[in-house]
C-alpha cells in the first residue's frame, strides 16, 4: 500500500493538470465569494445576506474534475493497464488514489475556503462571516466531492463522461428539484446538499462512499 501511495503521488505531481485545477479551485472559490460579497455590499449596504462561502459552489467544479481525471485520464491513455500490472490489487490502487486525492485537495480546499472567508470579511465587515464549523465543513465537502469524482470516473471509465456525470450530480439536481412541486426527496438526497455544504455533508459523504464502493467493485470484477 505504501508503494501504491508513493506511485500515485508521483503520478499526481508529475503532470500539470492537477496543479492548475487546484489553483483554479482556489481562485474560483475566492473570486465568487468576493464577488457575491461585493454584490451584497453594493446592493443594500450589506443588509442583504448572501450565503456565506458561496464560492465553494464554483470551486467544487475543478475539484470534481481533478477527482475524475485521477482515474478517468488513465482509461483515456490506456495507462490504467500499466497501473494494474504494477499493482495488481485493484482495491489498493483505488484506495491509494483516494488517499492521495484527499491529501492534495484538503490543503488546497483549506486555502480556497479560508481565502473566500477572508475576502467576505474584508468586503462585508458587518456580516457575521462563516463560522469555523462552516469553514471546516466546506473543506471536508470539497474533499468528498473529489472522491465522488474519483468513484464516478471509476464507474464510467471515461474522463469526459465522468466529468459530465459528476457535474450533473452537483449542479443539476438542485435545478431539477425546482420542477413543479419538485420531488422533495430528490432535494434531500442530492450530493450538493439542500442548504449548502455543512448541513448536507452526511449526504455528500454517502454519495462519495457509494460511488467509491461501486467503482471499486466494478474495478475489481471488470476486465481492465
Amino acid at each position, binding site marked *: 500500500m*505504501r*508503494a501504491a501511495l*508513493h506511485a500515485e503521488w508521483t503520478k499526481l505531481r508529475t*503532470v500539470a493538470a492537477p496543479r492548475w485545477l487546484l489553483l483554479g479551485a482556489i481562485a474560483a472559490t475566492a473570486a465568487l465569494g468576493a464577488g457575491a460579497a461585493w454584490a451584497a455590499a453594493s446592493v443594500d449596504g450589506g443588509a442583504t445576506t448572501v450565503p456565506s462561502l458561496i464560492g465553494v459552489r464554483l470551486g467544487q467544479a475543478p475539484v470534481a474534475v481533478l477527482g475524475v481525471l485521477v482515474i478517468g485520464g488513465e482509461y483515456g*491513455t490506456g495507462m490504467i*493497464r*500499466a497501473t494494474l*500490472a504494477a499493482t*495488481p490489487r485493484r482495491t489498493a490502487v483505488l484506495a491509494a488514489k483516494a488517499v492521495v486525492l484527499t491529501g492534495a485537495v484538503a490543503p488546497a480546499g483549506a486555502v480556497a475556503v479560508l481565502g473566500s472567508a477572508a475576502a467576505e470579511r474584508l468586503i462585508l465587515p458587518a456580516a457575521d462571516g462563516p463560522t469555523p464549523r462552516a469553514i471546516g465543513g466546506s473543506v471536508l465537502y470539497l474533499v468528498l466531492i473529489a472522491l465522488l469524482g474519483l468513484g464516478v470516473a471509476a464507474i464510467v471509465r471515461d474522463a469526459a463522461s465522468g466529468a459530465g456525470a459528476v457535474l450533473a450530480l452537483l449542479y443539476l439536481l438542485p435545478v431539477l428539484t425546482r420542477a413543479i412541486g419538485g420531488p422533495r426527496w430528490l432535494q434531500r438526497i442530492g450530493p450538493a446538499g439542500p442548504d449548502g455544504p455543512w448541513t448536507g455533508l452526511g449526504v455528500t459523504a454517502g454519495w462519495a462512499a457509494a460511488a467509491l464502493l461501486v467503482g471499486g467493485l466494478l474495478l475489481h470484477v471488470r476486465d481492465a
Partner: protein
Amino acid sequence: MSPTGIVVAGLRKRYGAAPALDGMSFSVRPGVVTGFVGPNGAGKSTTMRVILGLDAVEAGAALVDGRPYRSLRRPLNRVGSLLDAAAPHPGRSGRDHLLWLAHAQGLASRRVDQVIEQVGLAPAARRRGGAYSLGMRQRLGIAAALLGDPPILMLDEPFNGMDPDGIIWMRAFLRSLAAQGRAVLVSSHLMSEVQDVADHLVVAGRGRALADAAVDDLVAAVSEGRVTLRTTAAPHATAVLVRAGASVVAGGRDTVTVSGLPADRIAALLGAGAVPFSEVSAHRATLEDVYLELTREAVEYRAATSTEVRR
C-alpha cells in the same frame, strides 16, 4: 523449487458470443525467447492481458512462477510487460512515467535512469510523453518492462512502429535477455519479425495454441516430404507433376515446392517429359511456411486468392 516461467492452461473467454480464447495452453521457459505468433484476433493480446491479471477468464489459469499474477506482491520484479506500447500520459515525461512505476514497486529512482540508458531513451527522457514517436513509446515500454529486473518478460508486438535500426537492436536485445536466463515471450503477427529471434514458437489461432514447439522441430515437420524444384518452365513442370499425383505450390521466381512425390521420382518424370530443370533438392521451410501451414484453417480474415494448384 517452484516452477519458473509462465504456464497458461486451458484459458477460455468469450466477448459476447464470440469466443476470444478457446482452450489456450502453452508454457514459457526461462533462457529462451518464445515467439507468440498468429493472425490478428487469434487471442494473443487477450492471453497476455489474462496473464497480467487484467482480464478475467471463464475457465483455465495463467500462472507466473506458479502463482496467479494478482497475488504477486511486487509484480514488476517478477514479470516485466509491454502491452500495446507504453501509454504515458501526454503531459508526463517518459522519466516521470517510469518514476511512478518504480515507486509502485518500492524501487529507487536510480533504477529509472539505468533502464533509460539501457533502452537508449536518455536524450528524450525528459520530454513530454505526448511528443513521443511510436518507436520511442516502444522503447519507453521496454524500459518499463525492465524496471524491476524481472526474470520473466512479456512483450506484445514490440516491433510495431520501430525503424530497421530499432528492429535489429530489439532482436539483439531480446536474445541477450534470454541469454541472461530470463523467460521471454514476444508476440507478433508478422513471422519475419520473430524469424531470427525465437527459439520456441507458440502459434495461436482461433483462441487456441495450434503449436507449441521448438522452432527447429516445427521447421523440420513442415519441410518433411517437400521438394524444391528450380525450373524455367514452371507451368509445364507443374502440369507433368500434378498429373502424376503431386501437389505443387508456386515458390519464388523459377521455383516451385512439390509435395507428394520423392525427389528421384520427380527428376525421372521431368526427364521423361523433357522439361528443363536446374535443381531438385529437399525443401527447407521458412517460419513463414510453418506459420501459413498451421494457420491455414485458423485465419479468419484471409484473402480469397490462392496460388495453390490442386488436382
